[in-house]
């Protein structure tokens, strides 16, 4: 953020009477970030980070150590190993989580690509085409965001069984696509309306077909919006448990990481060496995506929630 100087120079010192007289702006900032605020922020950040840090440390400790002593004892008695990760990422072992990681990838990519494409087409027609019932239909799509997916699960399961895709990737892909559409249409429509209408009209007057306008004009301009929704949908699908549990079952053929980890937490006796390493493998992908594309994600979040 650029800090523009105030138009009128303030001669009077700020009420708290400290050094910098000219910039009330900076004084305001200082008031809001007192030393106590800094201390409080650091304490909160520490409390927020320690649980994750504890599990991360645990994932590098030998299984026997994990079950007998707390992770903080590594401070006095460091003993690390990569064994847990070797088990989790092994290509041929019954305890390996690798098939589930592959499943997560196979589930996620189409579940992000499909709704984005369909929603962009729909949002384009809602924003720039005239047809009967357009506004009513748009409101209906917007309103469908309210439907909790729980309401749809059992009837959908019946449909999938009838057409023979139950327990396959198709059931999961289609479900995520359908559930993602209302928000996607809404977000992309909002972004699309911000594009100046003259631009589209000029192209149309020049004789450009809708398909041309869509590809040449809309898609390039929409890149940030597509990225924002893509990241949003990616995190949602990668982190989903309910849809996967319902439509993918628990086998390593289709079930994603979340289901595998969920099943591990249910088994009696603490398999913390598997859980901790597995959890970190599953966390690392969305965390990396999030950190790399944070700006787009936040933008999508703001568009989604503040406009609401």
């Amino acid at each position, binding site marked *: 953020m650029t800090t523009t100087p105030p138009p009128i120079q303030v001669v009077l010192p700020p009420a708290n009477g400290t050094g910098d007289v000219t910039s009330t702006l900076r004084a305001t900032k200082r008031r809001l970030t007192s030393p106590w605020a*800094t201390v409080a*922020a650091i304490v909160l950040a520490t409390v927020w980070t320690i*649980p994750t840090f504890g599990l991360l440390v645990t994932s590098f400790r030998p299984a026997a150590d994990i079950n007998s002593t*707390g992770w903080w004892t590594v401070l006095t008695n460091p003993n690390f190993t990569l064994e847990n990760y070797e088990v989790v990422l092994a290509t041929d072992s019954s305890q390996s989580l690798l098939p589930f990681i592959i499943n997560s990838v196979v589930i996620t990519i189409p579940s992000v690509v499909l709704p984005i494409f369909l929603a962009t087409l729909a949002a384009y*027609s809602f924003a720039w085409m005239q047809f009967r019932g357009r506004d009513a239909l748009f409101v209906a799509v917007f309103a469908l965001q309210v439907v909790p997916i729980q309401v749809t699960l059992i009837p959908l399961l019946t449909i999938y069984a009838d057409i023979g895709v139950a327990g396959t990737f*198709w059931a999961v892909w289609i479900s995520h696509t359908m559930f993602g559409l209302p928000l996607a249409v809404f977000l992309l429509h909002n972004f699309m309306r911000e594009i100046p209408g003259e631009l589209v009209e000029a192209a149309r007057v020049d004789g450009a077909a809708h398909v041309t306008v869509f590809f040449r004009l809309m898609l390039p301009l929409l890149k940030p919006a597509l990225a924002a929704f893509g990241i949003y949908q990616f995190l949602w699908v990668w982190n989903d448990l309910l849809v996967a549990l319902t439509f993918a079952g628990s086998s390593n053929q289709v079930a994603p990481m979340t289901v595998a980890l*969920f099943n591990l937490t249910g088994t009696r006796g603490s398999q913390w060496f598997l859980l901790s390493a597995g959890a970190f493998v599953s966390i690392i992908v969305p965390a990396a995506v999030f950190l790399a594309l944070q700006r787009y994600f936040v933008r999508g979040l703001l568009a989604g929630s503040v406009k609401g």
Partner: protein
Amino acid sequence: MNVADKLVAMVLALAAFAVVIGLILFVVSLLERRGARRVAWFFVGPTVLLLIVGLLYPAGRTVVRSLFDAAGSSFIGIANYTAIFSSPDQLVVLRNTVLWVLVTPFVATIVGLLYAIWVNGARGEAVAKALIFLPMAISFVGASIIWKFVYEYRFYDPDVRVNPEQIGLLNQLLVWLGLQPQQFLLNQPWNNLFLIVVMIWIQAGFAMTILSAAIKAIPMEITEAATLDGVSSTQLFRYVTVPAIRPTLVVVLTTIAIGCLKVFDIVRTMTGGLYGTSVVANEFYTQSFTAGNQGLGAALAVLLFVLVIPIIVYNVRQLRQAEAR
């Protein structure tokens, strides 16, 4: 299926999808060349079709199904709904859901708001925010595992001189303080609060991000004028910051409240809904898929739907008012 098969299946699916989209666009361009004007339905059609099949029709089926018995064979009217509001087990579920919806949004929002103010304009703001925001990127399952480990309890007998070491951080803290370790996830009704902590941990980052953007949007002149008038930072917060971001506060509170209504993964992963911790979304799953009570499951799903609506209506109305001003 091995790895290669799965990846091939995925690529084929994507290719099939591309072909379908390509066909649609091809037909549209053909029609347009012939001067047809009503091509919009080709654009919006696939989405509308999927929404009818995927959301509208199933929702209707579930509403109907909620009026039938456990096997879905005979009509029993509103008996499933009366069961929810009269059976002791289901009342616990309702109580817990109310607890989640009342506690989580307020605590998460307060934490997020305070943190947003504390780090606003501070050095290293981006990093400080990422630390709080990162739990948002983690799955609820991952978050639950992280916290299950914090709460982990090792058998403890006060009469025995040497007990096993605690490996959960929270219980070790209790031991260091000279207290006895607790079964955080088993002791009713407090275990509900320990589950809620996980949701707060996740949602505070969301609240912080949105509120931080709102705070930065407050015109500098206002805070400047207030500072010149000599108000304290508490007064600035109370009389300037909070009123200025009120619409955003409503959005954040309601969004988190809706998230809490639908919370499933955390409860499922940490306690399975046992020990008096079940909530509506989890009970729906239990009744539908493990207890085999389709009717009650459907009624719980419909209840969830009904509970979400007033929150959203309130949210939209607040936004309208804010825009009208």
